[in-house]
């Protein structure tokens, strides 16, 4: 493998990491602040992609899809929060897992009833079409550069919101000591609702951005959800910084593992067996990494200080 190809693959790994971060950010926020396991985060990502695709198709513009899609995803999150999730905050993780799984079943089937089972198409906006040649014959789509930028900006914005603003401070305090915050005259219930809706909007944002790259189809959130969970667990639950770094780590492990595992195994196996075993090993690698990290640091890489 040439150095150039290695660098390109590293870039690809970072980019997968950024996409994972966009999904994981909302998840870790809700999980960390409210101690709430939201398996439905993946379907909220899917819902965002569908809403964005439908609005883009209706208005004829990706940008309108994005602009209108965000409040729509927020509203969908609010509806779910009021109907279901609000009643689960005080319940144990098991109950949350079961109930949010019910929501997954419902929404996966729901989008199929509304939009059909076939994947939808979302064209890349005209402004971001084209690519940059990063190696001979290979274009790096401008749209992906924009997604990278959006991911980094989201990370920065979130960190600033949580660590540097009054709302963020209240949220952090509300998570560790709800009674005290309530005593200060803050409605903790409303605070949680806002955090949840914000998390839903983040998931929707990730879904809308993913639309032009990935196929928009029922169940598209399920695989992403599992990877996003891996990310937040490796990063330390509730830590935005941890989620960001862990997402990059997972993206790099996955991408570099896929391109290097077959080559490494070829040293000991015959080429055809090495390719197949290498591919199987590569898909396991992320989980191996998570098991190894948890075995040595049971609370993840960046455990959040709990009060």
């Amino acid at each position, binding site marked *: 493998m*040439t150095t*150039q*190809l290695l660098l*390109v*693959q590293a870039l*690809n*790994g970072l*980019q*997968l990491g950024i*996409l994972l971060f966009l999904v994981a950010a909302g998840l870790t926020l809700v999980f960390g602040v409210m101690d709430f396991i939201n398996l439905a985060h993946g379907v909220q990502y899917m819902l965002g992609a569908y809403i964005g695709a439908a609005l883009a198709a209706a208005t004829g513009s990706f940008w309108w899809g994005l602009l209108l899609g965000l409040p729509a995803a927020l509203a969908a999150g609010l509806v779910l929060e009021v109907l279901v999730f609000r009643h689960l905050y005080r319940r144990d993780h098991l109950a949350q897992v079961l109930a949010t799984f019910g929501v997954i079943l419902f929404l996966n089937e729901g989008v*199929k009833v509304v939009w*059909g*089972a*076939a*994947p*939808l*198409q979302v*064209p*890349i906006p005209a402004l971001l079409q084209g*690519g940059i*040649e990063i*190696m*001979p*014959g*290979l*274009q*790096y*789509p401008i*749209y*992906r550069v924009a997604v990278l930028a959006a991911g980094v900006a989201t990370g920065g914005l979130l960190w600033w919101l949580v660590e540097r603003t009054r709302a963020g401070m209240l949220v952090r305090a509300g998570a560790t000591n709800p009674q005290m915050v309530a005593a200060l005259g803050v409605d903790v219930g409303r605070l949680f609702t806002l955090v949840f809706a914000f998390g839903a909007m983040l998931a929707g944002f990730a879904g809308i951005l993913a639309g*032009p*790259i*990935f*196929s*928009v*189809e*029922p*169940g*598209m959130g399920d*695989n*992403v959800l599992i990877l996003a969970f891996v990310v937040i667990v490796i990063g330390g639950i509730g830590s935005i910084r941890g989620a960001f770094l862990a997402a990059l780590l997972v993206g790099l492990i996955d*991408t570099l593992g*896929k*391109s290097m595992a*077959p080559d490494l195994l070829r040293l000991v196996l015959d080429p*055809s067996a090495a*390719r*197949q075993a*290498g*591919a*199987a090993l*590569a*898909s396991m690698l992320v989980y191996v990494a998570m098991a190894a990290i948890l075995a040595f640091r049971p609370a993840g890489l960046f455990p959040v200080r709990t009060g």
Partner: protein
Amino acid sequence: MIGIGRRGLLGATTGLLAAPALLHAQPAGGVKIGLVAVQTGPQAALGTQLRDGFLQGLRHLDGKLGGLTAEVVHIDDELRPEVAVTKVRAALERDRVDFVVGVVFSNILAAIMRPVTEAETFLISTNAGPSTFAGRGCNPFFFTTSYNNDQVHSVIGQACEDQGYKRVFVMVPNYQAGRDAVAGFKSRFKGEVVDEVYVPLTQLDFSAELARIAAARPDAIFTFMPGGLGVNLVRQYRQAGLASIPFLSTFTVDEATLPAQGAAAEGFFSAASWAPNMDNPQNARFVRDFEAQFNYVPATYAAQAYDGAMLLDSAIRKVGGNLRDKGALRTAIRAADFTSVRGTFRFGANHYPVQDFWLLKVARRPDGKFQTETVRKVLEANVDPWAAECRMR
């Protein structure tokens, strides 16, 4: 209404074809079909194609198969083998279906093979055509109206040879059908395979693989990426500016995925024994009426299921509606005395079709929709490579 295939409230079944006749004719003089089509999960679009193709066949036959009123028991295999086994057993033992038809995926077919054939019920696959049941595992109660998977992949191998490509990059998902695809391709391609890449079935982002393709600079790529995988790959391949490298594929660009791939797939190649633009009266009627009824372009899944309905019609007619004499029924099915949307159709000794295969290319129709169109015939009256191993009892 046709097409919504739901099951009635009492577990009784409804295909509701030619409704008034159905109410009186059942069960005497009727025929029950268990139609296995996945309706759950990301691959549901393929199951819908299959189901609608079969129902369109029944429409053209006025809801009758060989003169018997047809009732369809819809079975959603959920792409979960154990679920498929349980539901198919229910259809066999409780609903007493006379035929089991359909099945998109080979793993589902493998799972239901024994329960169906051991009950001495005919299993007509209208899509899955694994090698397992073409050679030593061939079965007197099993027929397929589709193809053997290896044949389709070998078409691309042959096409690459014909085209004079020397260096081809191969990329498939890392599972059995993917490995079969590589074997099928290599059976006819004699040039250099510059790299073989196996990706996980849950793959989302192909950037890493696309970088490898760009670095390898092959004459062409061969890929097999069914369903959503293909949607992602085709779009990302186009976005990465690789489209100048010919894209030859199987089950990757077809009418089930083209609505999502759109212009990104234009000019990409595929292989099959049928395409919507195939020029014969039976096909013209099928495509026209199918589109009018279901409002989308049919893919091979639909066409082969349509042929499945026509096949059953011809066989039941031949035995005069007597479904008890299995031997006579088998002879009648084997005769395949119907007009196929593919033009000609006949079964080989292993009950797999012997047919022509075409190189197809994605094109935009005048109405703006996309479909695959025939480029040229690559294999003529092709017998699958396993047929010789079959010792049909």
